[in-house]
């Protein structure tokens, strides 16, 4: 049985805003699955429906076999969520927040005590956990929230933009923590992010989300392989579509080449980088020529016509 099953899931908010437009995906037990897309793509709404805080307009979703609409308590019992914004009792200590989660998820006191002790060590909360949360920095609070979500040993863990708003050092530390969670083979993780490196580093598979739709779903490697090993980027002076047509006629570019504004991106097929640069230079099309390895941003750009970083 899949840990997460989503079929035809759709959400239209009052006022007609279609946040999620009928998405399908399955996540296997132990898999780390990423929803990659800019703000407003529908990622958080999808997590909201899976955690039963957003009512689906249509479609179905199951966590561990439990239908989130018909069996919400069972679905919530096997899952935990780390929210995008801080969601903690700031007036209470970190330990009290952890204990509260354990009680609400009905973890046996002895098991909860041991588990909290383990998580305090693992997440480096030893010096913090008996202070009130209002004194924590953003990174410390986020570590506490991750620890809290793990207290009940969930079968499914939702991480909604877990590193957003954190400084680079803290973000790097948290990525290490989340990468460490992969060691728990029995835990399935659904992660939303608009950071490409995060998705590429952490996820077994990625669904690229754009305007409420999943436009691609595969492993990071397979998504990148779709653009070959290397690509050429050039800025053209005239009409980019005309320049692209010339490159295709010369068999330098294939169907997977694309233009955004005055920039052409051409995955190299059957040409070495030096050969392609020489051929393109000979045509006199480009002002600036560069070659580089493809990134998930190129995948996103090709699929949506938008740069992920700019859209985020």
């Amino acid at each position, binding site marked *: 049985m899949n840990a997460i099953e989503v079929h035809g899931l759709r959400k239209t908010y009052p006022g007609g805003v279609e946040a999620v437009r009928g998405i399908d995906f399955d996540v296997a037990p132990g898999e780390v699955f990423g929803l990659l897309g800019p703000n407003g793509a529908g990622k958080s709404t999808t997590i909201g429906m899976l955690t039963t*805080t957003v009512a689906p307009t249509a479609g179905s979703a199951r966590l561990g076999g439990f239908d989130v609409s018909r069996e919400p308590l069972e679905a919530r019992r096997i899952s935990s969520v780390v929210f995008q914004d801080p969601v903690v009792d700031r007036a209470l200590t970190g330990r009290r927040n952890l204990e509260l*989660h354990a*009680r609400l*998820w009905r973890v046996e006191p002895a098991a909860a005590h041991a588990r909290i002790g383990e998580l305090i060590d693992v997440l480096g909360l030893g010096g913090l956990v008996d202070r009130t949360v209002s004194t924590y920095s953003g990174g410390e609070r986020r570590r506490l929230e991750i620890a809290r979500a*793990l207290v009940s040993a969930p079968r499914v863990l939702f991480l909604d933009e877990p590193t957003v708003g954190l400084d680079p050092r803290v973000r790097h*530390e948290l990525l290490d923590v989340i990468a*460490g969670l992969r*060691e*728990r083979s029995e835990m399935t993780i659904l992660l939303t992010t608009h950071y490409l490196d995060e998705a590429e580093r952490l996820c077994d598979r990625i669904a690229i989300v754009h305007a409420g739709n999943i436009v691609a779903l595969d492993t990071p490697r397979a998504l990148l392989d779709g653009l070959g090993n290397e690509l050429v980027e050039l800025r053209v002076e005239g009409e980019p579509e005309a320049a692209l047509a010339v490159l295709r006629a010369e068999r330098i570019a294939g169907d997977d080449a694309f233009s955004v504004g005055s920039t052409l991106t051409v995955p190299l097929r059957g040409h070495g980088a030096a050969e392609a640069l020489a051929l393109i230079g000979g045509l006199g099309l480009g002002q600036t020529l560069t070659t580089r390895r493809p990134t998930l941003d190129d995948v996103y750009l090709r699929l949506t016509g938008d740069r992920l970083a700019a859209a985020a």
Partner: protein
Amino acid sequence: MTAIAPTLPLSRRRAPMAGLAPLATLARRRFQLTTRTPRELVVPLLTPIMFALVIAPALKEALHASISYESFVAVGTIGLLIPLNTMFAGLGVIVDRESGAQRELLAAPVPRALLVVGNLLVALATTALQVVVLIGAARARGIEFDASAVHIWWFIGAATLFAIGMYGTAETLASRVPKQEEYIARVPAIAILPWFLAGALFPITALPTFLHWVSRCLPLTHGLALMRYGLLGDSSGLHAIWGMSDPTAMAALSLGVVALFATALMAVSIRVFTRAAMR
């Protein structure tokens, strides 16, 4: 920081009274949050104590009223204390939603109605504490009460049911308004305005006929009449509402009105909260 070691699934509690455990946890959480903000306990007490201990004796002197007027107003101020305290308690719901752990609670495997009931239990406990403090302060000031072992239950029933209804009102309002500022702006109309019409400072028979009818429809009027019946043995407030001769029958009718108010407002508050929780 290191990777988390694999662990076996944790054992879950299966106690006979397991259904009450989440409610106790939620109430305990709310209690801990409340005790960390002592102003929530103290501020609602200030105005009623001022009325009971300062303004009522001053009015008695100025109007040459009898000693029982102080007792009359002391019970009347409970009708101000309960709405003020429950409305303050409702603010906690907005704080939870804006900057607290409400979404974590909504993602927890507990029925969402329990979140409202857990808050209610703490609001009732703090209200009870404040009522005891107010009565104790009034007694210390020399104000007399005349409660029998039987009549006191009318007082307890009326105060409890009225507090439940008022907390339902507070929770409903907190679920419907987006900001604390908007919530606070509505508090005087809900918590204070009815107090002037409900016979807190003078019998409702002193009101013009139209307002007298309005007053008889207010749950607070029934609550105050019952509380005076319970704490002072004075059934004149009940008579002013019902016009009957049997105090017990009138008290039962008024208790029914307050119970209806409590049931309806709690049902509405749970419905509004659970609907607001689902976007």
